[in-house]
């Protein structure tokens, strides 16, 4: 694959138009500029310009201590904040040479999966808005409120949870949590199954999404995409199975794949992953051991020994990695954030070229990128 069609050149024929989608546009979850050169209804070239919410995180992190960075890792991708906390804590724990307690591992898995639930629910909801299915958006946000209440009961916050700590988690489950969670998740399972039926049987929706924006497994591998778009193309690549962390090798779950690689499959993968995550949460609540939720010895000022670590996690959007270089002081020397949405956003322009303008909204929303993570 070449990079030619992903750079915009000026129109040469009178039938070509330059179309700018952004930086403020109803279909976007955050500001970016999508330039399209179209001829009639077909897209000839597409370019994605990012950086509108570039915060300079990597520079700011070099000036904060390890404990001060912990609440800021939430803000890298706000919809996957528990995953960000978890991967950061695992990286620093590897540098410090400590392990979280058994109960803390199960609690982290529980909050990771709850986070995946609410991220997929909002992702499908925003995708439904862009396709034109506003009812689904309202339903999804309503279901998401239930999950957010569960997270709020544990962590105390609706968004930006800041729950993991070095060697454990911040606090234990409140009393009566298991019954409340099982009741809410039982309701959620019923509703998601009915939404799945709704999405698979509506004929207009199927015509808009089946066979549109096809990303084959080979193309996805070349473009460097991971996460639900790759699994929708048939590749079984899930870090929870490939490189099991925390207690995922003790839990029973399937890696969800589809075969077609189009918009419909990507959304279907997310819907089925919601049901799979509910199953994982039920197992966690069953198998959770009693014991301390945090190591006794966690120093307030952490000074890891000099070294480096690359920690990975299966984010709701793909593979999130953090590369931390420590020089022995209480601030990191280099903190590199490898976000999954960066890879997915880079793969969007080649996917749009050759298609119709009317499909841009559906394809862009089905890739489910989080602009804050692309720009950092």
């Amino acid at each position, binding site marked *: 694959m070449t990079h030619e069609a992903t750079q915009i050149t000026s129109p040469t024929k009178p039938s070509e138009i330059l179309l700018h989608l952004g930086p403020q546009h109803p279909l976007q979850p955050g500001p970016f500029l999508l330039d399209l050169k179209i001829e009639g209804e077909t897209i000839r070239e597409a370019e994605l310009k*990012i950086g509108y919410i570039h915060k300079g995180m990597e*520079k700011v992190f070099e000036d904060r201590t390890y404990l001060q960075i912990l609440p800021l890792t939430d803000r890298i991708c706000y919809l996957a904040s528990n995953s960000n906390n978890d991967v950061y804590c695992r990286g620093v724990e590897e540098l410090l040479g400590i392990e979280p307690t058994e109960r803390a591992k199960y609690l982290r898995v529980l909050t990771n999966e709850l986070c995946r639930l609410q991220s997929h629910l909002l992702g499908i909801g925003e995708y439904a808005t862009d396709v034109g299915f506003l009812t689904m958006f309202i339903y999804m946000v309503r279901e998401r409120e239930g999950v957010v209440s569960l997270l709020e009961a544990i962590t105390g916050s609706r968004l930006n949870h800041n729950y993991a700590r070095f060697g454990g988690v911040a606090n234990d489950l409140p009393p009566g949590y298991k019954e409340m969670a099982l009741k809410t998740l039982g309701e959620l399972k019923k509703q998601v199954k009915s939404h799945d039926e709704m999405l698979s049987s509506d004929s207009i929706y199927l015509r808009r999404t089946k066979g549109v924006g096809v990303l084959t497994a080979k193309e996805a591998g070349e473009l*460097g995409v991971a996460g639900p778009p790759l699994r929708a193309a048939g590749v079984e690549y899930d870090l929870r199975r*490939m490189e099991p962390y925390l207690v995922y090798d003790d839990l029973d779950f399937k890696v969800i794949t589809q075969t077609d690689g189009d918009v419909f499959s990507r959304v279907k993968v997310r819907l089925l992953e919601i049901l799979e995550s509910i199953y994982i949460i039920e197992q966690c609540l069953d198998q959770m051991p009693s014991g301390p939720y945090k190591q006794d010895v966690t120093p307030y000022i952490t000074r890891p020994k000099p070294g480096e670590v690359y920690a990975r996690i299966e984010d709701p959007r793909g593979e999130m*990695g953090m590369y931390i270089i420590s020089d022995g002081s209480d601030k990191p020397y280099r903190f590199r954030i490898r976000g999954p949405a960066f890879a997915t956003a880079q793969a969007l322009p080649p996917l749009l070229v050759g298609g119709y303008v009317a499909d841009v909204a559906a394809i862009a929303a089905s890739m489910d990128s989080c602009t804050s993570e692309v720009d950092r």
Partner: protein
Amino acid sequence: MGDEKIDKTIMIELSNTFKDAVSDVDVPSPNRAVARIDPGKVKEIMQFLLDNGFDHLSCVSGVDYPPDKMEVVYHVTSYSAPLVITLKASLPRDDPNIDSLCGIYWNANWYERETYELYGIKFNDCPYMKVLLLIEEMEGEWPLRKDYAGYPDLT
């Protein structure tokens, strides 16, 4: 290219194939391997890894070691095995440039553009080397270098 090749024995093959270009090979854990490479041979080494099952370029980053050194760090993984190989190439800080990997891994383009605008490391033969995250007026300031004067910006 079966699964039996995609594990840490690739590091032994790598250092045998490129004797002078690969040094300081270390395998700290079963799924992580680190090596230092010669920046002039980065394209051949990456092509060798691609041919041997490492088909996913995860990340390209820059690290600044004042006063005389800068490094480019590559993380290469595979879609069929959990091993992550970290490769580091050392460059002189006054004029850092290295060959671009856009012909080998398609997604290297944006990573290289970002490393260029934040550190000033030039990637030769990279198509469309221009700023990605910053405004065009800030090209040339290299904000992530350790001696950048514009941080902290207390206005």
